[in-house]
Structures are given as C-alpha cells and as structure tokens.
C-alpha cells in the first residue's frame, strides 16, 4: 500500500466519521487539558501519605498527652475494665475543640461545641407548658432526662426538675404532695424537621427529682434526692414523706404514687438490666450506697420486690470513697484501681424505714460498702457503670463498673484533677460505646476556661482517651434576656452551673442535655460518627 493509498483511506475514514457525527449532531470533544500534574494513583498515594502523617501525628499527640498525664500520676496500669482501657489520659477532642456555637432557636451563643455541631434550645424555665393553662409553666432546675419512647421522627423525653422549695406546680392525679415543687415534664422533639413541638407535666408534688433512668418498657424512673417531708398547705396535718422513686410514662401522666419497695433515701439515678429487669440504683449520700431492686413483676414496680445493698466480699463496710479526706473519705482505695472486688448483696428488709433509721444504716449493719455520692449510672452489655461525684483521691470523681454476671466491682477511673474531670454527675454510655459525663462541681473549685468557671460534657473513650466534648457558655453578662410568654428574666453568668440529663436517641444522631440553671434543654446533632461517642 502506497502512502497515497493510505492517506486516501484515512481521508475516507475521516469523511465517514464527519458524516456520522453530523447526522447525529455530535460535536468533537474539546481538547483535553494536559494530564493533571498528579495522576490518580499519585494522588491516592499522596493522600494516603498525608492521612498517614496526620494519623501518626494525632496518635503521637495523644500518646504524648497520655504519657504526660501518666507521668502526673494518672496511670492505673494497663488493662481493660468493663471494655475500657484503664490507661487513661487527656487528649484533644477527636471531634475538634469546642467553639462558641449559636443556638438555632435563639441565636445566642449558649454552648461550646465541636465544629459542625448544631443545637436547638427549648423548655426554658418559665416557658409555657401544654396544656395552655394560665400560669402553668416549665418548672426550674432541669436535671436527669431520658428518651423514653420514639414514634417515627418524634422523640419523647422525660425530664426531672430538682426543685425543692415551693408548692406543687400542678394538681390532679399526677401529684404526690401539694406542698412540693419538683416533678417531671415530658417533651416531644421532631428529629426530621429539627423542631421542638411541645412539653407537658407528667409528675408533680415531689422534691428534688435529681437523676433517673429509662426502663426497658419505655418509662422513666424519677428519683427524689431527699429524706424530708412536706405538708399540704391547705391542711398542715397531712404530711408527705419524700425520698421515693416514681414511674413516669412516656405518654399521659404518672399516677403520683411512689414505688415504696425501691426504698426511701437520697435517690439519684437508676439503670435497668434488660435481661433480668433488675434495677440498679445509686444513693446520693456521703456516705452513700449502691443498691439493686429485683421486682416481683418487671413491668409493674408497684407490685413490690426485693431491695438489696452492695457489699464487698471479705471486706465488711469497705471504704471505697477514695483517699481525699473531704466528705468522709480519707482511706486509701483498698485495692489497686482496675483490680476486681467480688461482691455480694445484703437485703434491706425495711425499705420504707418504718422501723430502721435509713436504708443505708440497714445495709451498713450487714457490712455494706461505703461510697461517696454515687450519682449517674447506666447499663451496657452486662455492665452497670456508675460515678461517685465527689469520690476518689482528689475528690473530683470516680467511675465504677459492676459486672453483673461475674458479680465484680472495679474502679475504672479516679479523676486526678478538676481539669481532667470535675465532679461527674449524670452519665450515659454513648451509641458508639464511650462514656459521657455531665459535670457538676457541687461548689468545689471548678475547671476554668479562659479564667471562667465552666462546666463541661466530658467524654471517656474505650481506648482510654478523655476529652472535653462541650462547654456551658450560658452567660448573659450584665444584660438580661427575656423570652416570649415567659415572665422569667434571665441574667448573669451561668457557666459554672451543672450539665444534666444527657441522653441519646436510638439513631445516635441526637444528644439531648440540660443546663440545670437557668434551666434550658438542648437537642444537639452533628457529625457524631466522625468520633468515638
């Protein structure tokens, strides 16, 4: 084939192509730019190298932080307790350090959250409740809270109010005592439309409803943290002893009747073992005990049950309060942190204290263990976690694990300083397996953020990292803030007030939490899956 022949055939091919393109309205592909300066493989290699460098740097930073912390005396020795690494140290937040974030509802910078997180406030103290009865408003002192039921996109929460002075905010079947201001309100949040819808009263006439716990049957156990009594303002001869747990439903209202068999004491929180229905209960006392209640009927606590207090086998009245002398401690923890203690349970035969002085004294007489302000508690995978707010070597808090099957108690964490963890109160196990603590400094010197006492949500991950997830930045300064249809005037710096009521919905996309004073509830969402909570 000659050159001319080849060129002729090439021209013919060009013509065929041109005719085909014209017939189908095809345009020639514009000239492509020069291949990128870095091809895909090189890009991936470079990206992997960058990611690797970042990961190594991050790991190194965490490692160094943990080593530095360990050198300050926080090393418990390597091991695992309740699924958690006991070599615990402070790290930067894996979600990013909290930054002042505006409330989607009010536009106020109420919280410090990691970048990408958003929140909606609702149910401020004094906000109208449903039904729209004049004067029926949200009680103060928001405390423990849980997601008790979900209906499609709606999350129903039950919220405690730790009010102690005043009279009942609503009468009717839901009321226990006319002379007590505490109780519960339920709230509905539409997760799809990111909108709070309503809240209504569900329990009234109680005192200091502090912590609580969600039951497997979708109710909320609301505990009174008091041993006092109130009287009916209209009839002072009618006296109402307090210190009970009440069962509050997700829909409707409670019957205002205490679960007497769960005992009368300074109740805090509850966690239910879903396998057995046994309820584990903390007592916010210094000293205080750790209890369990085995109900006759796991869905109806009013039918009674057996109340018991934890005892360390072979160590009568084991002092587990920690070495800090404040609050009655002062004794070294009896075994190295991380070492298990075998436990048994002693029965509290008189849970209503009709004859005995107290639940605690009954347990103590039988060798029950002594803790220092047991408060928040939560269940996950056969383990009951609970905190002692003021316990430990520094008085800044302890975290215990109780293995239900092994019947062993282990001290997982003993906060070395307020900078690391400042008096944990309510706590939860997060969807991705971490622990999240609501700080409540209870009047002790608190963590300072830029020189200002600030309470935080602090997280502990399964691999032993502890970090600040969120900050309370509620500060009205010298000004005031008022809300529609709300007579309360909000003012002053509220940053040192406790977090409370942290709880996740079942999707793991929404965290709900309270700032107790001035009393605000938040729905928080963001890139949760990018971190360990």
């Amino acid at each position, binding site marked *: 084939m000659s050159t001319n022949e080849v060129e002729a055939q090439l021209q013919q091919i060009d013509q065929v192509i041109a005719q085909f393109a014209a017939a*189908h309205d095809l345009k020639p592909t514009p000239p492509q730019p020069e291949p990128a300066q870095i091809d895909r493989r090189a890009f991936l290699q470079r990206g992997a190298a960058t990611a690797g460098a970042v990961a190594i740097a991050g790991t190194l930073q965490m490692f160094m932080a943990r080593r530095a912390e360990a050198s300050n005396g926080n090393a418990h020795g390597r091991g695992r307790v309740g699924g958690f690494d006991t070599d615990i140290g402070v790290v930067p937040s894996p979600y990013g350090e909290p930054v002042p974030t505006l409330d989607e509802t009010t536009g106020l910078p109420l919280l410090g959250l990691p970048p990408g997180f958003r929140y909606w406030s609702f149910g401020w103290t004094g906000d109208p409740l449903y039904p729209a009865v004049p004067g029926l408003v949200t009680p103060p002192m928001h405390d423990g809270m849980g997601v008790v039921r979900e209906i499609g*996109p709606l999350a129903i929460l039950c919220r405690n109010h730790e009010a102690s002075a005043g009279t009942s905010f609503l009468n009717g079947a839901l009321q226990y005592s006319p002379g007590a201001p505490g109780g519960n309100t339920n709230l509905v949040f539409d997760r799809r439309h990111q909108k709070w819808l309503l809240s209504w009263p569900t329990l009234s006439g109680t005192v200091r409803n502090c912590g609580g716990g969600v039951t497997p049957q979708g109710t909320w156990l609301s505990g009174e943290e008091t041993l006092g009594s109130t009287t009916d303002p209209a009839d002072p001869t009618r006296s109402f002893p307090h210190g009970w747990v009440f069962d509050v439903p997700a829909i409707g209202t409670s019957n205002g009747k205490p679960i007497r068999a769960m005992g009368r004491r300074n109740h805090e929180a509850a966690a239910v073992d879903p396998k057995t229905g046994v309820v584990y209960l903390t007592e916010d006392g210094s000293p205080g005990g750790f209890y369990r209640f085995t109900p006759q009927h796991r869905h109806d606590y009013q039918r009674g049950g057996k109340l018991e207090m934890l005892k360390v086998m072979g160590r009568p009245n084991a002092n587990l309060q920690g070495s800090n002398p404040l609050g009655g401690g002062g004794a070294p923890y009896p075994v190295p942190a991380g070492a298990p203690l075998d436990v048994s349970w002693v029965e509290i035969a008189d849970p209503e204290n009709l004859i005995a002085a107290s639940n605690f004294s009954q347990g103590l007489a039988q060798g029950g263990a002594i803790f220092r302000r047991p408060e928040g508690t939560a269940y996950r995978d056969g383990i009951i976690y609970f905190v002692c707010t003021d316990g430990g070597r520094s008085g800044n808090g302890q975290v215990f694990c109780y293995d239900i099957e092994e019947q062993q108690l282990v001290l997982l964490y003993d906060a070395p300083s307020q900078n690391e963890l400042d008096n944990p109160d309510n706590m939860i196990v997060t969807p991705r397996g971490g622990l999240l603590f609501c700080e409540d400094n209870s009047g002790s010197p608190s963590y300072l953020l830029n020189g200002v006492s600030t309470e935080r949500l602090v997280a502990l991950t399964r691999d032993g990292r502890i970090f600040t997830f969120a900050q309370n930045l509620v500060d009205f300064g010298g000004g005031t803030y008022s809300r529609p249809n709300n007579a309360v005037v909000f003012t002053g710096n509220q940053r040192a007030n406790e977090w409370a009521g942290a709880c996740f919905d079942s999707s793991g996309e929404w965290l709900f939490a309270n700032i107790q004073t001035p009393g605000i509830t938040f729905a928080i969402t963001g890139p949760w899956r990018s971190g360990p909570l």
Partner: protein
Amino acid sequence: MLRSPRTRLLLLAVAATAALSLAMYGWRQAEAVAAVAAPPPAPSTVTPAPATVAATSPPSPAPLPEGWLAPPYSSEVREAIDAVADLGDPAALDDVVELADSVTALNAAQRTDAAPRF
C-alpha cells in the same frame, strides 16, 4: 514519512479501530439522546397490573382515624400528628394519636378542674 508498508498498515489499523470506536460511541450517544427526547409512548390499552404499581410506588399513607383533625387538637399536637402521618405507618399513627389524645385529655381536665397550684 509512512514509507514502511508495515508502519502504514499499522497506522491504518489504529485509525480504523479509532473510527469504529468513535462510531460506536456516537451511535450509543445518539441512541441515549433519542431515548430521552423520544415522545412518551401512546397510552397503552393494557392497564398495568396493580401489583406492579404497588411495587414501584411509595407506600400510600394509611387511612387516618376518623376525626383525627378534630378541633380539640391544638396546633402543636396537629404538628406532631402530621410529622408521623407522613410516614404512612399505621402503628406509628396509632401511637401518635394516643399521645395527642392524652395531652388533649390533660388539657380538657385542666380546663375543667380546679386551677393548678403554683
């Protein structure tokens, strides 16, 4: 240039292959464009089987309980019902109506009972 018969043959083969590929590409493109631009087919005289329609259509909302938008429901409660009604889940709808009825009953009770204490 192109003095070697082998080179010329090779070049011709490459050119032919490229042309064929381009032609195929163009044909597919034209076919795709034609498919998009084609007018809708004339209405068929055959009615699709209901099962086919059900399988490809989103679930239709469950029938609402009679009186679900009854006047006693406030705007907040209606909003809660609406949020669930969109799902078309009868069980969820039952639950939210139970919620709506309970708070509405509380409302009614509070309006008829003695004034609450504060």
